[in-house]
């Protein structure tokens, strides 16, 4: 498409089917949590959630807290278990804190999520832009703009030579064109993240990415 649009699909407008009460504060929050979980690649043991502006002021009334945690547990916005997510997280031994912030940010519905598991940690910032649609605006301090609706592969892997070449070779062999690509890492030689926005819908390739040596996890969403 010629212009960069925030909304490209009729289902951004008519949908999603979701558990109420708010598409931006509940469904969007659940989607943010779920995508963050996919980027992190495993269930965290500790999560600190920083909420900004409207999210900070109304998160309890809208169930934003419940939805973010539900998403982090892998639940979709139409999952009936969402309402019990805080209890489920507690039972699984995940420590969750919510920190409402008064800082100004670019978008009123913003959540910055800091995840930990053992020595691993990561921060991801998600933005709920309305109607249940979301964007990812930051990973580990690295600013980016990931719109859902674009087919995207994300890998979490060991920071060793050849990883980028192997992943791009795999996509190239399958005639998948990469639109944008972002690579970031926690520290030299530790965990790295690779995000590839592509033109073709190929969820089947995620298993091949997962099977590559030194890949801890790979995820696909669109």
């Amino acid at each position, binding site marked *: 498409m010629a212009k960069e649009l925030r909304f490209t699909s009729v289902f951004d*407008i008519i*949908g999603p089917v*979701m558990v109420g009460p708010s598409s931006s504060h509940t*469904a969007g929050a659940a989607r943010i949590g779920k995508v963050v979980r996919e980027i992190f690649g495993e269930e965290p043991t500790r999560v600190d959630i920083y909420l900004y502006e409207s999210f900070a002021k109304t998160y309890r*009334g809208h169930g934003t807290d419940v939805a973010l945690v539900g998403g982090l547990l892998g639940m979709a916005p139409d999952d009936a278990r969402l309402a019990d997510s805080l209890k489920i997280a507690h039972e699984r031994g995940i420590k969750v804190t919510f920190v409402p912030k008064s800082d100004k940010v670019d978008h009123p519905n913003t959540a910055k999520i800091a995840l930990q598991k053992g020595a691993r940690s990561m921060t991801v910032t998600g933005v709920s832009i309305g*109607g*249940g649609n979301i964007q990812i605006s930051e990973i580990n301090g690295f600013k980016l703009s990931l719109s859902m609706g674009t087919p995207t592969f994300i890998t979490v892997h060991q920071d060793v030579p050849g990883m980028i070449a192997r992943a791009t070779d795999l996509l190239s062999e399958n005639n998948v064109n990469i639109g944008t690509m972002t690579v970031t890492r926690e520290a030299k030689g530790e965990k790295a993240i690779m995000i590839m926005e592509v033109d073709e819908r190929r969820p089947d390739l995620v298993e091949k990415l997962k099977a590559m040596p030194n890949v801890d996890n790979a995820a696909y969403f669109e």
Partner: protein
Amino acid sequence: MFYSIKELVEQAQDYPSVAALMVATEAENTGRSESAIRSLMARNLDVMAESITKGIAGVKSVTGLTGGDAKRLDQYLGDGTSYLGPIALAAVRNAVAVNEVNAQMGLICATPTAGSAGVVAGTLMAVREPFHLTREQQVDYLFTAGAFGLVIANNAGIAGAEGGCQAEVGSASAMASATLVQARGGDAEMAAQAAAISIANLMGLVCDPVAGLVEVPCVKRNAMGAAQALTSADMALAGMKSVIPPDEVIAAMDAVGKQMPSAFRETAEGGLAATPTGRRIQRRIFGD
């Protein structure tokens, strides 16, 4: 793809309807087949119908602030003594039903948002029997609403936190009025006029939810959005036009949203949320 209402109306000339343009555009953008796209939308239609049935039967929200009014309206509708005719009052009842189910954390279809989900669904379920809409025509109703909604969302916005309630119930009411016009055989230009009249009528509407909950005034605002959609649709079908062209009306709504203080953008700091009773309810539910 269409970026403005003007482009939407122009491109619709090459198709039997706005709905057909929307399905073709979605297929082109996503690579999905038209039949897959139609069946995805049919699921949304089913969720809408189920949420209305559930709401009319009677629900209560988690906080107890809302619920039971769709049932009341249903009984009143049965009495046959209302000012509004049966179609309009049924649309109002249905809109209330959807948003009561939403507040109860039940399953709904966001259209374009959860807080404004009653308007398009409510009007559709009120007109489908009196005007004998087939299932395919009901699915088309949603595609047409979605086409107008896409343009509004991309040129203004649909989040109350960005643009106030005008962006939510205002957008929903515009979408519903446009598709109501097409459902009665009005052309794309008439549908565009209905959308413009709707947005102009709801310009400046603030988002002021009591205690930050999507309950007060959201449930009743959906009822108003549904009734307003029918009013604007009838005006357009009668041949009335918006003096300000539709795309300029949308740009004005965007500007108004940007000029709106944050107190009126879903922060629960202004309007009804800031009244003594609104504050009292907030303290009762969440403590200090």
